[in-house]
């Protein structure tokens, strides 16, 4: 099996969870990875300070889209004010694959977008 494109990565890429639009929503953000043009947006509905529902949307490589899908399943139920403090490792650990430096931003785009939606600061997450 390929070390990067594992079955579950490809499964999330081909059948992404929590993808689409969400209306009405409380929070939203849209961003892109200028290196490769991956695009990702998010709509978030908040209840009692927690993420009740979210939908990612966009287009990009398997890593960026699968990472968003995998992260989305963990993000639901999480307190909104904790998102900004999530480190880059949170995503890469979830993915469970070795990400080369050239693909790192693909994997982290979803967290960048979530940080933007919840804090207004869409800087790249650090380890």
């Amino acid at each position, binding site marked *: 099996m*390929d070390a990067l494109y594992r079955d579950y990565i*490809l499964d999330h890429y081909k059948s992404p969870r929590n993808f689409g639009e969400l209306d009405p929503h409380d929070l939203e953000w849209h961003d892109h990875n200028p*290196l490769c*043009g*991956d695009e990702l947006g998010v709509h978030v509905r908040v209840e009692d300070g927690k993420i009740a529902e979210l939908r990612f949307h966009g287009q*990009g*490589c*398997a890593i960026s889209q699968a990472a968003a899908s995998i992260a989305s399943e963990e993000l639901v139920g999480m307190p909104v004010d904790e998102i900004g403090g999530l480190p880059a490792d949170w995503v890469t650990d979830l993915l469970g694959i070795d990400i080369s430096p050239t*693909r790192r931003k693909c994997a982290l785009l979803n967290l960048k977008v979530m940080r933007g939606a919840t804090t207004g600061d869409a800087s790249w997450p650090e380890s």
Partner: protein
Amino acid sequence: MNPLTATPALDVRADFPVLERLTRGGKPMVYLDSAATSQKPVAVIEAMNDYYRRSNANIHRGVYELAQEATDLYEGARERVAAFCGWETATTIFTRNATEAINLVAYAWGRANVGPGDEVLITHMEHHSNIVPWQMLCHETGARLRYLGVSEEGTLSLDELDSVLAEGRVKLVSVVHVSNVLGTLNPVADIVARSRAAGALTVVDGSQAVPQLPVDLSAIDADFYAWTGHKAVGPTGIGVLHGRRSVLEEMRPFLGGGDMIGRVDFESSTWNELPWKFEAGTSPIAEGVGLGAAVDYLSGLGMENVRAHERDLTAYALERLPTIESLRVFGPPDPDQRGGVVSFALEGMHPHDVADLCDREGVCIRAGHHCAQPLMRMMGVPATARASFHVYNSREDVDRLVEALAKARTVFGL
């Protein structure tokens, strides 16, 4: 010539040492990203090495032997670079790259000659380097930036050019000679002639053309022609702007500093003569020497042979790539109408993943928007994968690419 049986004219892979290395996986490297930057032959590497070992000094000022030798090497390179493109030496200006060459025109000519109500005309197949400088010029001056469209087959329409020019507001036309995405070989001499007849200044971005085609600037006759050394088997850090003498003489300098002045007083200065008026500060001397060696190398191969080689590989790729299921090739289908660059997309796979999986097989291709985001939007894709060729590539390299693409599809379960 049957494109499927002909053998490429050139067999010069051994001249390019970097191609000897193996990739991480221990596979021989297939380098198919020459449109981004070409590899360098020993002759170029040695010329720069020799310059630093034997002849390094600052140019144009020193009276000692070493300084004279460095000056001769640099100015000798300029003469050969100018001759290589069929242009006059004194109006062949060295810049940092093609981007800086285009910015030179946008600042030194554009700011003085373009104003509110004027139009700058470019096309939808331009590289960002031939978009953004004009956007900045138009934002600052109140001029309007207009684009010529690109057809389904990736070509420009001269009728559309004529109709925009006929409106009478175009002050400058800037167009790419060979598209870095579509490979399209544009009829630049025709575009220049029509634009000049309408009173517009003409700029051609030849970054992808000079490395692979015989380019005779006296025949194209643009007011400005820009290209970059590193795509033409030369070093990074040096580009070229060939300009029309009458226009250059009227222009103010681009950057101020040493070397570009005639005389400096406390309040004002006078400008050096051409080309040095546009070369402020210490020049990229070793890079100039390297570029001189690069054009010597290409001239030695013969640019007709280089073109024949590129055409053969392009034709072969256009035959072989569509054998991959659900692969779509962009750009003109006729290899006579395009340079050695082929962009494509695989259904169900993002180009970034395609390039990553090709890398596992030792095949270096580019994925992304290729600094041409407006064109990507026109083509309706977020990005493409792109293979581009130079003299060191062979049909076997294309075969390796096709094998890697087939394997990539199986990884994705396609």
